[in-house]
């Protein structure tokens, strides 16, 4: 199912495997589905956008967590797949938030969907979780990079550090034919 929202195509496949199929219903109390993006009820209201954001952020948190496990166990395929999922989820979130910015606020004071309501609290918690997982992911990637550098240096061995600089191929011959008596360093 394709829907266009602010000029970008969102498909259920592009949001990830957890996207419910058309007609899927979500029971009360379960993780909210991200159906607003795939339903035919666009444009969405503020509360619906927040619900969808929470669901996407929770999905993103799960993917980040899985990506971290993959990184630690050097499972490059899983890391790659999770990174792709994260990229898609980020795109979907960008679209949602662009839509939200364009939606006039219809919150009423004391409403559970208001800025201090339960939904907003859940949204902030999900944002915080993703932010923190993102920081951990970045720190883990830096460490993986450092380990890789260590292995590269070990593989290179000592001769790589102390050898004379490489001259381009044929440089010796050119030097000899020009009659230069300079010695190479």
């Amino acid at each position, binding site marked *: 199912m394709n829907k266009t929202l602010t000029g970008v195509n969102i498909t259920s496949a592009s949001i990830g495997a957890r996207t419910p199929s058309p007609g899927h219903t979500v029971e009360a109390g379960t993780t909210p589905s991200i159906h607003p993006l795939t339903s035919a009820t666009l444009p969405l209201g503020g509360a619906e956008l927040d619900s969808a954001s929470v669901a996407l952020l929770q999905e993103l948190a799960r993917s980040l967590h899985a990506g971290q496990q993959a990184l630690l166990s050097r499972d490059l395929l899983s890391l790659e797949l999770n990174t792709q999922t994260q990229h898609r989820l980020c795109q979907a979130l960008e679209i949602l938030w662009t839509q939200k910015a364009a939606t006039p606020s219809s919150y009423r004071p004391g409403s559970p969907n208001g800025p201090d309501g339960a939904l907003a609290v859940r949204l902030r918690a999900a944002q915080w979780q993703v932010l923190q997982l993102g920081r951990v992911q970045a*720190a883990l990637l830096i*460490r993986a990079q450092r380990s890789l550098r260590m292995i590269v240096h070990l593989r290179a061995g000592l001769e790589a550090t102390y050898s004379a600089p490489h001259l381009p191929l044929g440089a010796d011959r050119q030097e000899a034919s020009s009659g230069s008596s300079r010695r190479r360093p």
Partner: protein
Amino acid sequence: MSSLNASLATALSGLTAEQGALEATTNNVANVNTPGYSRLVPVLVSSDPIVVDPLTLGTGVTLQSVESIRDPLLESQIQQETQVQGQFNSLTSALQQTQDNFTTSSSDIGTQISNFFDSINQLSTDPADLSVRQGVLTAAGNLATSFNTTANSLTQQQNSLDLSVVQTVGQINQLTSQIAQLNGQISNLQNVGESAGSFIDQRTQAIDQLSTLTDISVIPSNNSVTLTTGNGAALVTGQQSFTLQTQLNSSGLHDVYSQGDDITASITSGQLGGTLQARDQQIPAILTQLDTLASSLANAVNGVQAAGFDLNGNAGTNLFTPPPATGVGAAASLSVAITDPSLIAASSDGSTGSNGNAEALYALGSQTIINGQTPSDYYSGVVFNVGNDVSNASAEQTASGLVLQQLNDQRSSISGVSLDEEAANMVQYQSAYAAAAQVVTTINDMLYTVVNMATLTG
């Protein structure tokens, strides 16, 4: 052909070697739960053969050595990550303590800034009321106290971190001395061909502990290790250790010295690195921001005061004591300069009912008077930065924990003791020992036969 005695010696070499191998297994089983223990593996080699023309005959087996199983690359990674974890453990702990000063409460700076401007707003509605004027002085006093308390608390934290620096340096010296001593013991044993596995394990553990405290480089050399700090200052060379010293600097805090050189700035990881980072970078940065906020606010309020008139029609005087010209220490020393509420310059023209200057004072709350920001926004920025630093340090701490867990699991799979494997080895060595003993019995019988033969023929 070899003699029966030679065969007996060969069988005995088997008994001795298998007994040695069994001892290694016994030690492994005994240390199954010992942290940092690396399992021992016996290295058996066949003894040098002898030539008895025209044959070359084996002379049995020798237990050449008992080796500890280690992965140097893994050890190095663990030491590096331990340093990073030590750094972020102490940094996170210090920053969380710092953050407590900025938790929203009835007495935090942000609330007191709001209260101060609210009291001025009230004054502008009734500029001649002495009780309202007294309210402004009380709010100003609370604001100054809030700045003082926060700045003093940060300075106290800086001093306790300084104490921690001195203690950590003491622990480092203790460990380097221990490592130098272990270097000597390992070297002595290895020079006479003995296994120094347990001493190497102890040294590895001591190096791991040292990594928690500071950044070190480990350079393995013959039967020994050389340890240096991150910038190359020697800590341990062979059996000699070099102590680090602490010395008070002009700020009253301790710097770390190695053989006369100040190496404080180059210590970047380990517990010491994290403590120094909090003491010398994070807390001073926050103090500077608080000083900027306090001095800018005090100067702005004093400036507006000077432009107005008090209740007696006189030109306004300073509401806050003028902060130092450089701003350094402004937050810690901020105080209210007047005690008489009638001295607040609410009037802009000298008349009693005028509130022009009170409104100008109130307007300061929404003016960008501190580095292009309003006082409340600037303070929010300070709080945000502190929270952000805590989150970053906490994320690094989590990442370090995850990586270390992974590396330690890897180390356990390589160096750790598997009881199943040891049980299998035990059966194997036991069978070999029993077989060698059977050979000894057989040769003994053969010797007995030979001796009896000799007696009969004699």
